[in-house]
């Protein structure tokens, strides 16, 4: 799993080119610190270490939003972000301690051992522990009732930070669900499946509907992420192989698509100084390349066939349908809303008459082109040929699916080898 997500961390390095003017030295130092911690979080095979990175990660992000963000409310948004995450993290701390006390170790491989002490714990306790981890990850992801920090944080952060925030940081939440919640508490999972599925569906619609109503592009993209994360969690907790593979793939693709969207919105903001949709219009006439990549990224966001997110979304649907048709059908309706918010935003900003002020809008510069091009290329490449990613994901997913199925979950050693 960690291997898949490293490209996303590399993504962080890419975007350093984009912000050189508004960033300053401190900003890049924070990015590097964050990157180190993100690698740590995904690479940790020890619950304690995972927790340490999970929490320590907050601090650089906090300063990135608070110090280098946009708008007057950035300090407030940074605070909100920190408090939400910290509260979730502390709840997880209790669960981590509980796991340690019961399991006697922090080592992930031993904790997931079906013959281990943790597997033998009584179901009620396991549920509480599961809940402890899940709340933290749900805040991180973010899921519906606890998502409110994301729009304000993303809306107040610089586009570069937003890319990292949504593209990588939030993945820690879904990654945690996949790896820690499901594998450590297989027994408790089945008990929580339906509530989580319901929450995911709410997230999908709630995020989409709010996205439609936004007038700020950064917030809009942030809300689309809430919606997309609904799909991801739905896929994870459908507990079928395809759905989880789809969810894992979605995590990667969503990083590409949303990352590209945030970057492009960032370019627009750099030109016009505003993120408000009504300040734009007719951009495609003056800056066709910009509008073009915007459209591709947007279409990726709504999972158009041929672009990467389509594969993952399709897999999620297939998997969820196998699990239970009703949520799959409901979730599919969410895609319609996705088309609405993306296309409507495109229509309002890129088409129509060009206002006076925008008539001199420059097109993509060389530097910007190089920042977006790899993302667009990847979106198209993995949309047409997702097999390389799936090859990495599948062995890991097979293991994860087996665990909640309550069977002897493990594990030929090579599956594990592949994964690490």
């Amino acid at each position, binding site marked *: 799993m960690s291997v898949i997500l490293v490209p996303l961390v590399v993504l962080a390095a890419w975007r350093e080119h984009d912000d050189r003017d508004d960033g300053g030295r401190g900003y890049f130092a924070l990015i590097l610190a964050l990157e180190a911690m993100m690698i740590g979080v995904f690479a940790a095979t020890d619950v304690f270490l995972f927790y340490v*990175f999970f929490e*320590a990660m907050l*601090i650089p992000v906090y300063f990135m939003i608070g110090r280098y963000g946009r708008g007057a409310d950035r300090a407030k948004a*940074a605070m909100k972000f*920190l*408090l939400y995450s910290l509260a979730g993290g*502390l709840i997880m701390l209790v669960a981590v301690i509980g796991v340690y006390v019961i399991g006697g170790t922090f080592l992930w491989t031993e904790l997931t051992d079906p013959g281990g002490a943790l597997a033998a714990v009584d179901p009620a306790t396991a549920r509480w522990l599961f809940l402890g981890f899940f709340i933290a990850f749900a805040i991180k992801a973010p899921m519906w009732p606890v998502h409110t920090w994301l729009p304000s944080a993303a809306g107040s952060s610089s586009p570069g930070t937003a890319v990292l925030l949504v593209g990588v940081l939030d993945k820690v939440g879904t990654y945690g669900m996949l790896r820690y919640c499901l594998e450590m508490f297989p027994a408790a999972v089945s008990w929580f499946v339906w509530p989580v599925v319901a929450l995911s569906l709410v997230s999908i619609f709630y995020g989409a509907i709010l996205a439609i109503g936004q007038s700020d592009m950064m917030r809009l993209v942030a809300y689309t992420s809430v919606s997309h994360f609904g799909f991801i969690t739905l896929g994870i907790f459908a507990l079928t192989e395809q759905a989880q593979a789809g969810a894992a793939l979605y995590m990667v693709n969503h990083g590409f698509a949303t990352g590209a969207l945030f970057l492009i919105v960032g370019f627009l903001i750099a030109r016009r100084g505003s993120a408000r949709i009504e300040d734009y219009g007719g951009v495609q006439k003056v800056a066709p390349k910009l509008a073009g990549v915007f459209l591709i990224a947007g279409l990726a966001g709504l999972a158009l066939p041929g672009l990467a997110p389509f594969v993952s979304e399709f897999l999620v649907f297939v998997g969820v349908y196998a699990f239970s048709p009703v949520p799959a059908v409901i979730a599919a309706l969410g895609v319609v809303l996705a088309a609405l918010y993306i296309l409507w935003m495109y229509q309002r900003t890129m088409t129509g008459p060009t206002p006076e002020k925008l008539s001199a809008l420059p097109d993509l510069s060389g530097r910007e082109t190089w920042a977006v091009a790899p993302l667009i290329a990847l979106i198209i490449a993995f949309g047409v040929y997702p097999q390389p990613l799936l090859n990495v994901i599948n062995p890991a997913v097979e293991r994860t699916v087996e665990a909640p199925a309550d069977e002897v979950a493990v594990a030929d050693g090579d599956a594990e080898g592949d994964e690490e």
Partner: protein
Amino acid sequence: MIPLNLADGAPPALHGVTEAPPVLDWWLLAPFLVLFGAGVLGVLLEAFWPKGSRRTAQIALAAAALLGTFLLLVLQVEAVGDGTTIANGVLAVDRTVLFFQGTITVLALISLMLIAERRDGRDAFSAQAATVPGSEEERTHILAGSQHTEVYPLVLFAVLGMLMFPASNDFLVMFIALEVMSLPLYLLCGLARRRRLFSQEAAVKYFLLGAFSSAFFLFGIAMVYGYAGSVNFGVIRQAVESGGAEIFQDGNGEPLLLMGVGLVAIGLLFKVGAVPFHNWKPDVYQGAPTPITALMASCTLVAAFGALLRVFFVPFGTSAAIWEPMLWTVAILTMVVAAIVAVTQRDVKRLLAYSSVVHAGFILTAVVAGSVEGLAGAMFYLAAYGFTTLGAFAVVTLVRTRDGGQELGDLDRWAGLGRRSPGLALALSLFLLAFAGIPLTSGFIGKFAVFEAAVAAGATPLVVIGVLSSAVTAYFYVRIIVVMFFRESEGEGPTVARAGVLTGSVITVGVAATLALGILPGAFLDTLLPSGEPGQEPAAVMVGQVTEVSADE
């Protein structure tokens, strides 16, 4: 009751002192003697040393005494082995006690640096405390450059009391230690150079409330004595095990024990600053000269918790059923009330005071655990917190108003500090994050150790409350960071006094300790703390090697 108590207070040793001269282990007593001697010497210096160089001499003496004490304590670690009692069994020396004492001396040494720091030739203390604030007389003293060099012997006496407090193996000695520790502190609180009325008010408040709590403590001792027939910890422990002294064979002794435990606990919890007894802390911390506040926030807290752990684990170790519900309540109240009240504070020193109250609550969860892990967790927490809080108060001494050079308590006026002196603001941010328990700082390891012990002991609800309350506390720590970094100063911002060598090194030590204990706690945890014992044995086995010793008395 009282005459009886006094009459019997004299022979704490069961054989009677008069028959044979007491056997004193001078080597193990040496740390106390060095400090006491230095304190007395300091008073003499005050009388006979020429005024011009008196301050230098006093500082040198105090530093040498503390350093010497620390070295003696370190040298004793190997020698004491499993622990023993000295001076007729009234003082215990074991590794736990030595740890507490060592921590206290180191922290005291660091606070001494803050106390000795001068700015423009003036230290933090009033020129002549006996003068009426604002009077003509006061002004002449200030102009003449008078100073209170008595501060240093007073600090030495206070530290002596702090060393005895967690080492006591006898309630009367513990009471004496409590008073030796507190009386100089009452005095020191009233010596602030600026805002003298405020400082004097703090001193009076502290003194009155402290006297009350001492009275409770003493009354509790009387009850326990009535129950157990002795004030010796080892004997009390046996008495508690067997249901009271011989006269209580009918089992009627229970109420006495209950009252005794409760009243003694009040005295100790007051010193710790746990919630129903915490009201003095904000006022005193705010009013006292900041270096003294730093001393109290670090050393006194360590000493008080050392004593608290000892009392609950050794003499009352087998009556956990009595005190556990009480400590549960107090711990919950402390964590919840203090965290909520702290949110509304606008003054930095008051805020740090409330934060210290919340931390006391966290440490209490480890006491409730009643296990070796709990003890080790509490010890680590105290040491880590001590260094961090010293650093934080050192920063507070540097941030001043533009005009009078007075310390700037009002948080809102700290805006823009991050821009003006980023180093200082970063250091303070680190301390605050450590208070909040963010990983990679010592505060996180401490919190983890404490909570882990509590969960292992089945106090999970307590931990959940603790965790929620630390989420609340995080809010106000982070708020300070927000003010410093993200808000522009309106009008006149804070000025930052240039950090002198002494204050600078205090901050450096604080940062170093916070990071070192946070990133590499292993060495510390393995070598110094008593967690080597397997599993969850009752803490008494660990702390109370005393028990065995007093058993063969």
